[in-house]
């Protein structure tokens, strides 16, 4: 009933969701092609602390790097971290949530007690201590953020599966002799799609902000160029004192735009999804 392309079509027909999609597509294009279109190498140096000029549209930083090139290059890295975290946590969270919700019993108990503890634990201090001890690479950051993101996802999926389980079409599938895994794969997963998409988007943005935050705190791979490290060096090299707004604005505004895009996209999806469950 709700095939993959059907969902995409439905999302596109909602104004808010379409706006969000367009924001993501633009950033994805910058992220993927940024590596080929930056005007200079992100590591090349020029005159330091230059305000924007025609040669350097976003100016230069404390070591004379071209800020536009750094931004174009860094977008890819930031999106890579965000997308990886979203993918891993959605995969684990959906799997655990579906198994827990559908089968209940001992499986559910073990998973959910573990999830409960991870949810009670405040995230930020845990992030800091893990990042402080583990080797500072982007992959470590991805690992830590995924570890802390999937529990919430599994909770959301689980409670949705619990209500789906009571719906007539699942009962019918059970009575007609369908196997548990087949029901999960064919019937339940299809109906979870809107919820999965919306959470994937929030996870993506959350991970981008969290990575930027960790980098800003001096954690993670500080040699990697991304939105977070750009802001870290802006702070630690006193961009404020030099009033170098051209260096501070691009990564922050990018984070804000992608955040707004995700929120509006989320509202759009809720509109579509809410209408559907109301009519069902």
């Amino acid at each position: 009933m709700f095939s993959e392309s059907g969902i995409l079509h439905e999302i596109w027909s909602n104004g808010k969701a379409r706006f969000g999609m367009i924001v993501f597509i633009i950033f994805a294009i910058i992220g993927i092609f940024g590596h080929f279109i930056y005007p200079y190498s992100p590591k090349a140096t020029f005159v330091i602390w230059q305000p924007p000029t025609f040669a350097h549209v976003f100016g230069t930083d404390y070591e004379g790097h071209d800020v536009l090139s750094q931004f174009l290059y860094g977008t890819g890295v930031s999106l890579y971290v965000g997308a990886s975290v979203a993918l891993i946590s959605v995969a684990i969270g959906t799997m655990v949530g579906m198994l827990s919700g559908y089968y209940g019993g001992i499986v559910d108990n073990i998973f959910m007690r573990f999830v409960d503890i991870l949810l009670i634990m405040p995230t930020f201090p845990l992030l800091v201590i893990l990042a402080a001890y583990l080797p500072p690479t982007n992959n470590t950051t991805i690992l830590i953020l995924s570890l802390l993101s999937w529990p919430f996802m599994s909770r959301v999926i689980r409670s949705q599966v619990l209500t789906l389980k009571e719906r007539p079409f699942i009962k019918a599938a059970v009575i007609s002799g369908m196997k548990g895994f087949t029901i999960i794969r064919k019937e339940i997963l299809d109906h979870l799609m809107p919820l999965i998409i919306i959470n994937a988007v929030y996870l993506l943005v959350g991970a981008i902000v969290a990575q930027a935050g960790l980098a800003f705190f001096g954690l993670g791979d500080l040699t990697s160029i991304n939105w977070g490290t750009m802001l870290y060096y802006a702070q630690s090299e006193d961009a404020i004192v030099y009033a170098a707004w051209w260096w501070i604005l691009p990564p922050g505004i990018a984070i804000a735009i992608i955040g707004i895009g995700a929120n509006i996209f989320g509202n759009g999806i809720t509109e579509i999804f809410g209408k559907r469950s109301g009519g069902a």
Partner: protein
Amino acid sequence: MITRRYLMVRSAYAVATTFVAIIINFLLPRIIPGNPAVTILLTNFHYLPPGKVKLLEQEFGLTNSSMLYQFERYLVELFHGNLGISYYYYPETVSQVIGTHLPWTLFLLGTSISLSSVLGVITGRMLGFRAGSKTESATSTIFIGLTSLPFFWFAIILILLFAVEVPLFPVGGVFYILDTPGLNFKYISSIAYHAALPILTIVATTFPAFALTMRNTMANQNKEDYILMAKAKGLPERIISKKYAGRNAVLPVATHIILAFGYIVAGAFFVEVVFSYKGIGYVLYEAVTTKDYPLIDGIFLMITVTVIIANFLADLLYAVLDPRVELR
């Protein structure tokens, strides 16, 4: 209503989570490859100062090889409030460092959360009552934008605008170095002056989320029968909004604020870093950049336990506030 079973389950979770935090705190320094004493000395001093390795090994309780024995020693020290000695603030202990800086963070957090929740409730109520109007949807969109801004970036922009471009406020710090601490007007006003921008940052980035929650519940309340009844009775809108719908919509906002507590603490830490405001967040940043592991560990444990306890208490408080809530 809080049943006894609920109370027991919740406290069991709080205790279990605290225990997990303690285990993480114990294990992390011990599972990084190599001798942590050597690793830490090398990253700090780039050579091995004679005698220091032994000293640090003792500090970590690594001299006896049995993990269980080490864990026992660790727990005994922990319950005596001994979190070890800071490298960076040497010879101060971790507990002393936390003790001197914690009050500033509490001051910052307490003021910001109070202001932000009051502001959130008031603006949310206004938005909720005008739900659907042009002004409302424009304001809500701006609020969504504000919630999407990273705390630290917003802080940097505020400094740039109001401390560098238009020097109204100090660029950072807690008070002027020349001020004499005490109950004198100059000192207190200096503290307020230095805290103004950090507090403004936290309030501006947190209240929109509270306002949006308030708006949503208010909009739902407006569809309820008792509101229709109040309108039919001819009660003025101001009273309906404040005393009827508003009163009922406040509770979800209270939950939201409670759930956001850990998030706000983290946010305040970032703001402290940007403003060089010497609270716990700034100290944690220093500890991270100087690889002061005992201090990182101590702050991790302190914050984790505080947030767990705060959430637990808030959970109970919620049931007391709303008698209809039955917590089993």
